[in-house]
């Protein structure tokens, strides 16, 4: 039984896992890149070791170094978090051969489900429908993909075989777009996963992206924790998740849960995993892929079930039985997660970098914030732009929305632009409130532009605010100029002037 856990990750998920370890009395080890010396995960761990320079390839993707550190400091388990090495079969295998417990599924399972094409064929064999696409063909060339695209028909999606987190996905409207999009998808897949292989999938219109959380122990027990609604995406990046989905009733939940358990059993799945489905308007569901790791959005499930998923991951990895049976799992209330990204929603969602100078977290009843940043931290271009997750729980979906609305209004981050205004606009959208959305909603039927009503009421206040700021700036400038005119002979004033312009 391991006593010391190394967390092979950074940011909010590293902090999340460190907390779970600490709350179970386990010793913790952090690893960090040169850019992350002051990061929260370094501060919160019992031990912390430098991996290398900022770029992931030289730090967080250096599995060899991480295993070496684990061995040297006596950490006999590694939690990979999500991203980075979480779905790398070779890394899991190296851990195993060095006698280190990998907190996740068996390497073979990672390999099977990590190759999206193999995963699809296994699931088809188990009798579960998949979204039509390229099947059972290895290492497709651009020419083969072009051929296949004609068979599948447009619109379709190009996806990375080793994909995850929305990286390497391209939507194609017609055959003319294929060559350039194949090229850019391969580039992104290569950069993100070190593997440029691609496959194609039919684009299902008006569909919802629903995933089922499963937990499986080493004693053959597999349970599911219900679904998460993850349809709110932009460029295939999830932005907001809910549990439960307002689209799924108890019957469909039970049915999808059973299928998720069946798939997990088919691959001898162990630990926490997620089965992603597309659900069409007629409530037919199709297997998309399985994520063999902890998900970013796991907290919404934790909030409605009371299950601490990371604690269960540790429990399972220690060879113990699941704490819960399927009958213990009850969905109570509703939870929503907003991903707070350092990006400017008024400027095409371009990433924003800089130093966070102030931050005021929303707190109080029914709220949870998972974050890895604090005032003083620099947001660099090296890693993901997600800097925090705000999770609100309510007795009903309506209460959760109202709570999230007040949380977003309270949250202040100074130093970088964030997508908080995007989430605020979303919370006010009637379609969102009504639960009427699919995976195309953000890109096709959502706008950051304010309504005529907003313009009138707050335009005046905005004008006053800007005018008062401009006025006080002008006053300050006038003071400096006047002082300087008066006092150029006096070096004290010169020093002050110089200081102001540094």
């Amino acid at each position, binding site marked *: 039984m391991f006593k010391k856990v190394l967390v092979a990750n950074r940011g909010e998920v590293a902090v999340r896992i460190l907390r779970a370890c600490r709350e179970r009395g386990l010793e913790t080890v952090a690893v960090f890149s040169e850019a992350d010396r002051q990061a929260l995960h370094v501060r919160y761990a019992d031990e912390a070791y430098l991996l290398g320079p900022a770029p992931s390839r030289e730090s967080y993707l250096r599995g060899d170094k991480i295993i070496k550190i684990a061995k040297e400091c006596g950490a006999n388990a590694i939690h990979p978090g999500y991203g980075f090495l979480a779905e790398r079969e070779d890394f899991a295998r190296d851990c195993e051969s060095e006698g280190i417990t990998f907190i996740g599924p068996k390497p073979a399972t990672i390999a099977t489900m990590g190759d999206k094409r193999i995963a699809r064929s296994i699931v088809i064999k188990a009798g579960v429908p998949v979204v039509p696409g390229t099947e059972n063909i290895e290492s497709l060339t651009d020419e083969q993909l072009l051929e296949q695209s004609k068979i599948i028909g447009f619109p379709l999606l190009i996806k990375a075989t080793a994909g995850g987190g929305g990286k390497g996905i391209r939507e194609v409207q017609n055959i003319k777009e294929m060559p350039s999009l194949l090229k850019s998808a391969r580039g992104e897949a290569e950069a993100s996963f070190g593997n440029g292989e691609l496959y194609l999938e039919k684009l299902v219109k008006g569909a919802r992206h629903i995933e089922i959380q499963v937990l499986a122990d080493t004693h053959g027990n597999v349970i599911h924790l219900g679904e998460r609604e993850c349809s709110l995406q932009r460029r295939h990046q999830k932005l907001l998740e809910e549990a439960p989905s307002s689209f799924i009733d108890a019957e469909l939940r039970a049915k999808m849960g059973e299928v998720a358990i069946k798939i997990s059993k088919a691959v001898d799945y162990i630990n926490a995993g997620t089965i992603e489905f597309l659900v069409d308007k007629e409530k037919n569901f199709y297997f998309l892929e399985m994520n063999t790791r902890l998900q970013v959005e796991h907290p919404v499930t934790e909030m409605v079930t009371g299950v601490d998923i990371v604690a269960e991951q540790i429990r399972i990895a220690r060879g113990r039985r699941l704490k819960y049976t399927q009958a213990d799992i009850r969905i109570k209330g509703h939870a929503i997660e907003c991903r707070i990204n350092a990006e400017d929603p008024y400027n095409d969602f371009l990433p924003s970098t800089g130093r966070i100078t102030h931050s005021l977290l929303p707190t109080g009843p029914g709220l949870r914030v998972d974050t890895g940043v604090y005032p003083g931290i620099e947001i660099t271009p090296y890693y993901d*732009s997600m800097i925090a997750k705000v999770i609100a729980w309510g007795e009903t979906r309506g209460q959760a929305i109202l709570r999230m609305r007040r949380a977003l209004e309270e949250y202040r981050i100074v130093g970088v632009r964030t997508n908080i*205004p995007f989430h605020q606009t979303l919370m006010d959208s009637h379609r969102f409130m009504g639960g009427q959305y699919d995976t195309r909603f953000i890109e096709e039927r959502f706008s950051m532009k304010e309504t005529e009503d907003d313009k009138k009421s*707050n335009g005046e206040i*905005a*004008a*006053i605010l800007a005018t008062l700021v401009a006025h006080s700036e002008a006053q300050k400038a006038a003071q400096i100029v006047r002082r300087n005119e008066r006092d150029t002979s006096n070096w004290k004033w010169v020093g002050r002037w110089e200081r102001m312009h540094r």
Partner: protein
Amino acid sequence: MSETQAIGNGSAVGNECTVNLDFFMKYISTVNDTEYLIEIIDDSHISINGRVLSVDFKPVIGQPVFSLLVDGKSYEGFVYPGEEEWEVLLMGRQYPVIVEDEREKRLKAAAGSSIHDNGEYFLKSPMPGMVITVPVEEGQQIESGQVLLILESMKMQNELKSPREGIISRIRVAPGETVEQRQILLCIK
């Protein structure tokens, strides 16, 4: 308070002085084509289009977050200086506000529309990153919204689009190059 008095107050070395300059007191502020005439009366009063309001204005948690009480209503906004306007983020909405002092605005109006920008647009990098591709060439005619450059940052490929039509006059970067924030990438005429 007259100008002379104000400067008199400030003459003690090291003591911050308050200069109230009359010609700074009236502003015309424009939000989405709506103009507001705003006059700063004193520290706690302004008038907007002739209506007098009691205001209490304070920076909180450091710039750019400001708290404003207007006749008791409590607002809090981020106010960022933009290139030509102020951006105000208020209750989840962003408002572009052009603030001009009244005299300046009158002078400009008198001069007519003779002042024009010289028509050159510089595409600056919105963040540090690496140039992936530059799908345009010097001399090429481009349309508004056309992708000018793809920049990788935070593991994402970001398309930088043209805000207007024109001709690429110069490209200053090449694929594979690492760029700093605000570095000029290319110019459009």
